[in-house]
């Protein structure tokens, strides 16, 4: 019964979103306050209805109601509760409901908390939001309905793929979707601004927090996925340039660009047209990302052939929002007034460079991801574009940007003195050079690029901190005054420093892990040992294990360094009910690197294939990603976002 209730709520939500799409737009064009105000209650109603639908679907999963086709196909009664809940969005239909849920949540947030928005703008923004919701609700109802009942319910379900039964992956989709959907708000604001023909600093001040929020969510969502791949897939890789990964990485790159260009609109009233375009592109890539992953367009072009309605719907949604957005842009953008002037070497100029590099990088990823699809459609040739392509294209494009990062926040608006900035950064440059030389001298192995990569990381971290030191007058005044200045700094400045330094940690982690990895693959009998990176790994024994929905074998390994026993690690091979197999990695994490033990297949005479690898400085990557996220949250708590903008007037603050 609850499922029917949920389905009914979903249909009502569809009707409400149609209302919310049409009526406020009408009101905005006629200047009718009553019609425009309808958007607010409609957005809240839509949120409540979609929540009800989503809750009823989760309920069906929790109680394992196998008379619901979607539950029977994707769940199993033996699963732990958390994976029953997470299983709700572990499939195409359920994930679409999650998507609409977040969309309506954000829509309601704009409706409820956007009281200082001018009414026509708010009405238009909510109407565009509703049009996205409408498209997805129609798609769910007619091509991806999770509420379909089965006439003959099975006794148990098909289960969730065991590799997906993992805490990091349970929360990876909600974060990622929050990021994708958050960009829909920037998109709606962009479309509303095009309809109004007005973009100003106040507009940017409303758009920026949403972009920042989506960016932070995307950052954490992507890192969770990467972390999951690292320890769950059992090969110790963290990024494969897989289409599914690229699908979330492209919106992240463009969102990063948008984040930076919106600053220029907010502070200097320039780059308006470009920022609007980025808003449209970021959400377009989010839409593509959603569909590429969940509908299997990339892994199988035939997903379209199997379910033509679904394929057609997806193409239509992409065409309407991407095509429509860009057409409106081409038509209305020339009407936007041009903003402030600036010299090429200035904060604005630096942010433009940031945008150019990020867009070029995103394009290279875009081409690498879609080229195989295009080629196969054109002449049937089957190719795979893998890491070598991306290392060769993405690497050289992003490298200059990383080198330029520390300069950015030090440039002044309008016209900057490049020489003065360099003077402030010479210390950071010297330290980076020193780090490079030290790593080269003591690293004694690995590719020549590794010391340079370490130097780049140090440059990013110290260079970002140098901005903080400079702003607090560190060393030029007493520590107490410096500290007071630090406390008094705008949070967005501290957030910038954190995020930029986070990129430095990330670079160090990636370079170390990919260039200095050590790996031993041996066949061990109980009692046998293998040495890797100064650790001795002893295979102690092997035992059967019994889990809630799996059975397996567990191998215990003693880790020692010289005569000191450090820890004991366990690696398991699990066989799941009703189907699937999966390996649990034994992981010992330190700041210097992770010891990563995988118990493989049985060999002859009671031996096991054991893979012991040392992945240097992987934790730095997660720390870096987290710092980037934390920097985003810090900026988000900045005073000017909290108090909002009372009127549509520009209050210029000193940078």
């Amino acid at each position, binding site marked *: 019964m609850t499922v029917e209730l949920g389905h009914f709520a979903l249909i009502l939500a569809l009707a409400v979103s149609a209302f919310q799409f049409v009526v406020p737009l009408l009101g905005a064009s006629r200047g009718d306050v009553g019609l425009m105000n309808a958007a607010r209650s409609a957005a809240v109603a839509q949120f409540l209805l979609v929540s009800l639908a989503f809750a009823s679907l989760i309920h069906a999963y929790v109680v394992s109601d196998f008379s619901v086709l979607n539950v029977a196909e994707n769940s199993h009664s033996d699963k732990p509760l958390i994976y029953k809940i997470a299983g709700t969005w572990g499939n195409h239909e359920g994930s679409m409901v999650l998507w609409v849920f977040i969309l309506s949540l954000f829509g309601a947030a704009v409706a409820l908390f956007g009281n200082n928005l001018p009414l026509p703008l708010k009405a238009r923004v909510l109407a565009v939001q509703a049009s996205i919701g409408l498209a997805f609700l129609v798609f769910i109802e007619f091509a991806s309905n999770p509420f379909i009942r089965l006439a003959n319910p099975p006794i148990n379900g098909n289960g969730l*793929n065991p590799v997906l039964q993992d805490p990091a992956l349970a929360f990876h989709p909600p974060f990622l979707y929050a990021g994708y959907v958050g960009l829909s708000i920037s998109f709606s604001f962009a479309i509303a601004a095009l309809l109004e023909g007005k973009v100003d600093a106040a507009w940017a001040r409303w758009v920026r927090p949403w972009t920042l929020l989506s960016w932070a969510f995307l950052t954490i969502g992507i890192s969770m996925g990467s972390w999951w791949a690292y320890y769950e897939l059992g090969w110790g890789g963290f990024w494969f340039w897989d289409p599914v990964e690229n699908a979330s990485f492209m919106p992240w790159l463009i969102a990063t660009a948008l984040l930076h260009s919106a600053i220029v609109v907010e502070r200097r009233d320039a780059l308006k047209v470009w920022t609007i375009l980025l808003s449209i592109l970021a959400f377009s890539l989010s839409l593509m990302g959603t569909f590429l992953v969940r509908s299997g367009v990339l892994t199988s072009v035939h997903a379209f052939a199997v379910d033509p309605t679904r394929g057609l719907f997806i193409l239509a949604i992409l065409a309407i929002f991407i095509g429509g957005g860009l057409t409106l842009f081409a038509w209305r953008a020339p009407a936007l007034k041009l903003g402030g002037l600036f010299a090429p070497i200035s904060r604005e100029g630096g942010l433009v460079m940031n945008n150019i590099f990020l867009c070029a990088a995103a394009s290279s990823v875009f081409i690498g991801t879609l080229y195989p699809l295009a080629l196969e459609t054109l002449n049937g040739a089957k*190719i795979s574009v893998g890491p070598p392509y991306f290392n060769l294209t993405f690497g050289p494009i992003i490298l200059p940007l990383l080198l330029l990062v520390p300069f950015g926040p030090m440039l002044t608006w309008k016209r900057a003195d490049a020489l003065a900035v360099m003077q402030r950064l010479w210390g950071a440059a010297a330290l980076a050079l020193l780090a490079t030389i030290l790593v080269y001298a003591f690293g004694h192995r690995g590719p020549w690029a590794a010391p340079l990569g370490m130097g780049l990381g140090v440059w990013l971290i110290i260079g970002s901190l140098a901005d903080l030191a400079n702003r607090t007058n560190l060393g030029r005044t007493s520590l107490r005054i410096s500290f007071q200045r630090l406390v008094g700094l705008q949070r967005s400045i501290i957030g910038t420093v954190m995020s930029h330094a986070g990129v430095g940690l990330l670079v160090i982690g990636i370079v170390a892990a990919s260039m200095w990895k050590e790996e031993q693959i041996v066949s061990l009998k109980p009692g046998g040992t293998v040495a890797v990176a100064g650790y001795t790994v002893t295979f102690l024994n092997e035992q059967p294990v019994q889990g809630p929905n799996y059975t397996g074998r567990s191998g215990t390994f003693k880790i020692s360094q010289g005569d000191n026993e450090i820890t004991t690690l366990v690696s398991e091979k699990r066989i799941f009910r009703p189907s699937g197999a999966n390996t649990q990695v034994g992981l010992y994490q330190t700041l210097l690197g992770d010891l990563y033990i995988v118990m493989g297949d049985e060999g002859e005479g009671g031996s096991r294939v054991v893979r012991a690898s040392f992945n240097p400085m992987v934790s730095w990557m997660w720390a870096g990603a987290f710092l980037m996220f934390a920097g985003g949250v810090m900026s988000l708590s900045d005073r000017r976002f909290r108090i909002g903008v009372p009127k549509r007037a520009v209050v210029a603050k000193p940078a």
Partner: protein
Amino acid sequence: MTRKQTRLTIILMALAILGLAAGLVGYALRSQITFFYTPSDLIEKSVKPGTRIRLGGMVEKGSWAKQPDSVNVFVVTDTLKNITVTYKGVLPDLFREGQGVVTEGILVDGGDFTADTVLAKHDENYMPKEIADSLKAKGVKLGKGARQ
């Protein structure tokens, strides 16, 4: 500088960077992509030894032999032609005889294949699309376990 000059500077910079990016992409697309072959393709198209390729097919039943030092030898088949593959390392969890596999590596003299990567896919029913397609094209009937 006037607005025009600024704009020109920015446009020139953007063009230079985008040009560089386009050049890299073009070069990489010619040199860094891996072609996908089935055993039949590999034999028919007489691929040169030493080329890096992806080889996909089914693991022939009863062909998987474990040798010392965790070297695995198995036969990849598309039911028409067979290629013997050698792989040193831990095979993915979903590696089974009689199921689909994609391996990446180098074709050695004598027609054998040395793989350095054996791909594990997330879906245990997964049969790589490329294999399903080419098998279908060659008229091979697909059993259970082959996804559409």
